[in-house]
């Protein structure tokens, strides 16, 4: 069972969180804080795994809460999911390794995704505390495991494992997940550098695929090959990159 604390100065906001958490049986709410000070005391007392944290609260803001908790001895920092009406704190939240950043109002679906991520993270943490701590410090893998960006009025902390494929559109890249596409101002080269080459493979000057979503590599009628994703989408592959995918398949 995973224990969670809710921190929000508005009672209806806490009520909504409680209601949504009813859908997620693995999480038990052990306390609610209406102010930052209350929240800090509560976290020290209950040592939860997960903290739902509002940014703007009457006495201090959510980041002050994190700051206080980080300097306190004997308290394991809980995993944090921010819930706020403001999008301007997203990068800060990302930098302090928040699990997710929920813009109010959010849907159950969005909430589920965030808690799912948190559960995953907490499980990893329990199984392998050292590795998880190392990953947090960034000395683990040199590759990014998630990206933060704004898209269509939302903030996304997107785990790269959810990316199916990436297409180049001039100075932009289009990141395609199973359900959505996002246009980012970024270059393929830069993105390729950030992504783990064991999972992401450049198959064309203008596309990178996530190998986890690849169903097959199929010869086309014109002698070229194409990559077919599990959702049936076909992505052309150029000759110069074919050797790379062959190497990968032979492994």
């Amino acid at each position, binding site marked *: 069972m995973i224990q969670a604390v809710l921190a929000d100065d508005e009672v209806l906001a806490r009520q909504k969180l409680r209601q949504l958490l009813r859908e997620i049986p693995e999480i038990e709410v052990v306390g609610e804080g209406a102010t930052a000070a209350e929240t800090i005391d509560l976290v020290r007392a209950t040592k939860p795994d997960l903290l739902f944290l509002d940014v703007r609260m009457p006495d201090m803001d959510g980041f002050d809460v994190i700051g206080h908790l980080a300097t306190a001895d004997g308290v394991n920092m809980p995993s944090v999911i921010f819930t706020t009406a403001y999008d301007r704190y997203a990068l800060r939240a990302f930098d302090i390794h928040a699990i997710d950043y929920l813009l109010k*109002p959010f*849907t159950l*679906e969005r909430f589920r995704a965030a808690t799912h991520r948190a559960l995953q993270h907490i499980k990893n943490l329990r199984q392998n505390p050292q590795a998880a701590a190392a990953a947090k410090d960034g000395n683990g*893998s040199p590759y*990014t*495991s*998630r*990206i933060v960006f704004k898209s269509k*009025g939302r903030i996304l902390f997107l785990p790269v494992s959810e990316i199916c494929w990436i297409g180049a559109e001039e100075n*932009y890249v289009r990141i395609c997940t199973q359900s959505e596409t996002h246009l980012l101002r970024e270059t393929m080269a830069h993105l390729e550098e950030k992504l783990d080459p064991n999972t992401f493979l450049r198959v064309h000057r203008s596309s990178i695929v996530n190998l986890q979503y690849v169903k097959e590599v199929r010869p086309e009628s014109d002698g070229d090959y194409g990559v077919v994703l599990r959702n049936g989408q076909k992505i052309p592959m150029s000759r110069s990159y074919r050797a790379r995918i062959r190497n990968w398949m032979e492994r």
Partner: protein
Amino acid sequence: MHPLIFIGGATTLGFLFALQEWIDSRFWNYHVNLSLLLSAWGVQYFLWGLICWVLWINFRQQINDASLRTVLLVGIPLSIGVCVLEEIIWVILFPRLPMGHPPMSFWPRLLFHLDAEFVDSMVIVWSAFFLFRGLGYYQRYREKELAASQLESQLVQAQMRALRMQLNPHFLFNTMNSISSLMRIDVSAADLMLEQLSRLLRITLQRGDSQFIPLSNEMEFIEMYLAMQDRRYAGRVEQQMRIDPHLHDALVPNMILQPIVENAYRHGLCRVSSGGHLDIEASRQGSRLRLAVTNSGHGLAVVHNGGSPNGVGLDNVRNRLRMHYGVEQSFSISEVEDRAVQVVLTLPLLFGSRPTDNETRYGVS
């Protein structure tokens, strides 16, 4: 400016010079005919006033636009010519001058007067030139300032209108009503709609004050708006967007497409019960950017009968295009086949000198 200002002003100046010379010569005990002095000086400056007026009326533009090369190669010879011509006319009019000299024939007289007055004449011509040029600069500066403030207010208006459009009863309350009705049957759908409404308002509030934004930003709003409308119209309208990827960074005036897309829904698509379509296309035409929004509906007649409400949003678009690009833009609204309405804008294709800041960040967790 009225010719009287030039001619009256210059002639008055001439009379004053005449008076000065008359007083001067009285001081030295010379006796000069005052009326001759007055007419000689008066006519001379009348001619200058006339010349300046002609310059102002016919050559203001050239004076303002002239490059240094043109000034040197055309302006100087021309100014010499004008000075000589003025002197020739004057010499013809006053054969008795100069006084106190034995009578001379035309050419020696002309040379005599040119020798005495050529430098003064050149000073007058070039003073006029620089005065006009300075006035031109000032005028342009004022015009630019005026245009900038107008553009600013138009953008503010567009933003206000965008907000009002989203807060207007038709959109906001109908959306809320949809949410309210969904709440009873499908809570997560209600939640989703509420979230979408918030995202839309968020984008609108965050657009900022810059006059130009990359097309990709403009399209972000449009996509969100379309997603929202798609829910409300539940499959009645098929939406299609074709954006040339080279154009994501092309600069467009902030909120230029949105009133058009909103209009497409307000006047066309909201009357379609099924099989409606909306096409948004951004393409490149040489050095121009072409944006086209086509929607099915009931043609333009409906829009025109609708009267002013349609006008305001599109007028704002039209005005802002004109103020930003002058004659370098076009705006047209027309009925295409099958009573569909098409709005087409073209504007110069420009790209930001510095791409917008990258807001993507990477991390491990």
